[in-house]
């Protein structure tokens, strides 16, 4: 079993293994036909599997070990990037990366959550779970962006804000709340992209935006499927059922008007063609920024405010 593939990807993994083996054969001319046939078969199989993914399978894709993380995107998505550190008060939270960047020549302030791939990286970035100083660093950078009139681009990829003793002591709640409050009226365009996992308040604290985009197989939820299952079913293994109930996939969230744009992923997900995914993301961001940069502050804030006030389904 190939550990870089999920359960439901195993049939694809087998075919990919065969293709890989053929690639190692010296005389490629002899096997060209066989190779093409296998590739077609693999594509067809992937299409078939991906046309009927369950919400739980999508949740697994959103957290796929080979999925791109924030730092993997920076080189291709932006022309340049200079990291800026620290909240100027307590420390530099490595779960949130921020800095000045350019995209197609346009200046932006970039802020993104970073999970980390190897064990060492995961520990360094705290598995992408920010502490209050991370949110405060993000807010500091957003305020700077507002001052110099440059748009903000954020990437969301977190299981949630870190539930630790120090985080609580330093006001995790207040840090998140403050970002919601300030972002909702920040006088510069904000574009947020959920690139993997949008975990609750810890995600929203970087995602109050003029445009919220989601990669196709990302998830965004008030609580993780496992957390929901352990509370409502007293059984974390019922996460698959909870995932369906929570409606945490991009098409569902778009339908409810909670996100604005779905960014299509390469066949089989981002991890099957990372370079294509990076380019798609780059053009999606550029497209939104070009529209938003044309709006006056008043137009921008009016539209953002109206959108936020429109969230909710109730009778009165």
């Amino acid at each position, binding site marked *: 079993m190939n550990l870089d593939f999920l359960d439901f990807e195993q049939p694809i993994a087998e075919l990919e293994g065969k293709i890989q083996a053929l690639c190692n054969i010296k005389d490629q001319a002899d096997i060209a036909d066989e190779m093409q046939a296998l590739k077609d078969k693999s594509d067809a199989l992937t299409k078939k599997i991906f046309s009927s993914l369950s919400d739980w399978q999508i949740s697994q894709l959103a957290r796929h070990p080979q999925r791109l993380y924030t730092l993997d995107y920076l080189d291709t998505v932006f022309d340049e990037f200079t990291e800026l550190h620290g909240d100027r008060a307590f420390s530099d939270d490595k779960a949130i990366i921020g800095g000045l960047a350019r995209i197609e020549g346009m200046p932006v302030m970039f802020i993104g959550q970073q999970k980390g791939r190897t064990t060492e990286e995961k520990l360094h970035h705290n598995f992408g779970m920010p502490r209050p100083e991370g949110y405060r660093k993000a807010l500091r950078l957003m305020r700077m962006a507002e001052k110099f009139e440059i748009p903000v681009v954020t990437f969301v990829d977190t299981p949630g*804000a*870190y*539930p*630790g*003793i120090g*985080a*609580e*002591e*330093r*006001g*995790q*709640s*207040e840090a*998140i*709340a*403050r970002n*919601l*409050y300030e972002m*909702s*009226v920040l006088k510069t365009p904000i574009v947020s992209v959920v690139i993997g996992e949008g975990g*609750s*308040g810890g995600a*929203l*604290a970087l995602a*109050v935006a003029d445009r919220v985009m989601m990669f196709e197989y990302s998830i*965004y*939820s*008030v*609580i993780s499927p496992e957390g*929901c299952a352990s*509370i*409502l*079913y007293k059984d974390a293994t019922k996460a698959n*059922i*909870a995932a369906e*109930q*929570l*409606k*945490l996939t991009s098409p569902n*969230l778009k339908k*409810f008007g*909670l996100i604005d744009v779905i960014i299509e992923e390469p066949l089989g997900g981002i991890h099957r063609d990372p370079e294509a995914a990076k380019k798609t993301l780059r053009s999606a961001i550029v497209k939104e920024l070009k529209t938003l940069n044309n709006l006056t502050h008043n137009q921008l804030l009016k539209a953002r*405010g109206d959108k*936020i*006030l429109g*969230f*909710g*389904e*109730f*009778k*009165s």
Partner: protein
Amino acid sequence: MSWLEKILPTITSAVKKNIPEGLWSKCPSCDATLYEEELKNKFYVCPSCDHHMRINAQTRLEMFLDEGSLVEVAENVETEDPLKFKDQKKYKDRISAAQKATNQKEAIVVRQGTLKGMNVVAAAFEFKFQGGSMGSAVGERFVQAVNKCLSIGAPLICFSASGGARMQEGLISLMQMAKTSYALNKLSDQQLPFISVLTDPTMGGVSASFAMLGDLHIAEPNALIGFAGPRVVEQTVREELPEGFQRSEFLLEKGAIDMIVHRAELRDKIHNLLTIITKS
């Protein structure tokens, strides 16, 4: 059946008859037996151990506002079950049950009234309604409370008691954090105060939105206030939590709240502070 069992039911029913239900209650903290009438006069604070008991929204608003402050705001706003959520029970049925049990339509109740003659809008959470959780209806009611303040030029006082965002409305509930926080900007623009009174318990998405955005943060003694629940924190860090972790006194020490005020003094203290910060 022994002779004892034969007479037992009659004995218990006789005892029950002599003590009308609801006349006596027990302090959940010190187990003292308390006379309901006295407890009410003491604002549901245990006279023997000073434990501040959880109270319902109506009691809260009645004890805080002047007598006769009965105008409810957004009283018809109710949830729609947008996700058609169903776990072991249907969300719709859970809502109906909560409505029956609490006699409220949602987990927050808003009233326009007076506090020692001063026009105010006050909101109180109904913790027994789905754990005081915030979904669409709670978010909308909060925003309408803010709008009422804007239209009459009154301050907003909110007594929170909530487990956080309401799971059964999924991401829509999460967005209520943004919605309520955004609304507070409007209050601020008009120099209208928002006083957040944190009562036991104020957690998760409610604590991580409007409840931590007050001009003043006032907590009742020993209230549990935080982002993640203490059990979640304990399981994550795998060490013993410090004494008094996430309690009002701990938050005061860490700088998250302005003061801790005894329930009996809340009316006087809040009125006093409002007279200082509001223009007459």
